[in-house]
């Protein structure tokens, strides 16, 4: 019963997160969704993942969101949506109705009787070690992307950071850069 209430609250928070005009408020509603889901998972008996969702989903992501919002400042949502509003409502509604109808008809057996089998850590680290390995690669790739995004290009003044400036510069600056890289291309040489 309390699970149902939690899910309902999560949904309401989700709708509010999408509807709210202020970014900061929307981020807090999202944190509410995460917290409700974490509690739901806890009530389900999935304790470990509830803790992870609470700390990463409700905690870390919210902190990052708030941090990003304070960096960029509030920016109100424009009134004109990208796609017609009826489509933006109809498409997700169709997905929901289809899936809900399907699930309610399918009659999935409740897993109350299912014995709590292997613990999360045993499954995650031993049986699904390949997932963990792929995750490490995923995190590394994400960090690389973040580094590339946040990198300051100022360390090399030759390559101006705005093309507008580069164009108004005398063209020779561009060519010097090109020639320079030509030269150390010759130095390093092709490895084969």
């Amino acid at each position, binding site marked *: 019963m309390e*699970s*149902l209430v939690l*899910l*309902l609250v*999560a*949904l309401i928070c*989700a*709708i509010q*997160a*999408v509807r709210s005009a202020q*970014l900061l408020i*929307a*981020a807090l509603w999202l944190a509410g*969704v995460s917290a409700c*889901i974490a509690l739901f*998972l806890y009530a*389900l*008996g*999935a304790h470990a*993942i509830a803790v*992870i*969702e609470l700390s*990463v*989903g409700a905690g*870390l*992501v919210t902190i*990052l*969101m708030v941090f*990003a919002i304070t960096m*960029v400042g509030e*920016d109100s949502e*424009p009134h*004109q*949506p*990208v*796609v017609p509003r009826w489509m933006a409502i109809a*498409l*997700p509604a169709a*997905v*929901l109705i289809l*899936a*809900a109808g399907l*699930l*309610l008809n399918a009659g*999935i*057996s*409740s897993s109350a009787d*299912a*014995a709590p*089998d*292997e*613990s*999360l850590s045993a*499954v995650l680290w031993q*049986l699904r070690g390949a*997932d963990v390995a792929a995750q490490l690669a995923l*995190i590394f*790739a*994400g960090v690389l992307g973040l580094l590339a*995004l946040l990198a300051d290009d100022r360390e090399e003044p030759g390559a101006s950071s705005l093309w507008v400036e580069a164009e108004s510069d005398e063209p020779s600056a561009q060519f010097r850069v090109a020639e320079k890289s030509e030269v150390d291309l010759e130095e390093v040489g092709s490895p084969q």
Partner: protein
Amino acid sequence: MIWGLVAAFALLAVGLYGLLALRNLIKLTIALQLMMKGGLIAVVLAGDAVGQRGLGESLGVTLIIADTVAAVIGLALAVLVRRRLGSLDIEVVSKLRG
């Protein structure tokens, strides 16, 4: 249990609506997060329903990590866009193409 899955799809629907209707880059990231939260409920419950709770939870952990990475990249992009353009509106960005 069934209602949990229905709620998961409801979160997917809310997230999809957000992705289609919103233009603010940070709010698009929030909509993505909503969608992935639905995915999290769905995989954990699916594992639970087939009697492999450990499996479902394991998938859930991986999912949380993956969508956090996507959220971080999305937020970083939003911050950069704002710095360069002074707007978070995806349409303003598009108009630059001219």
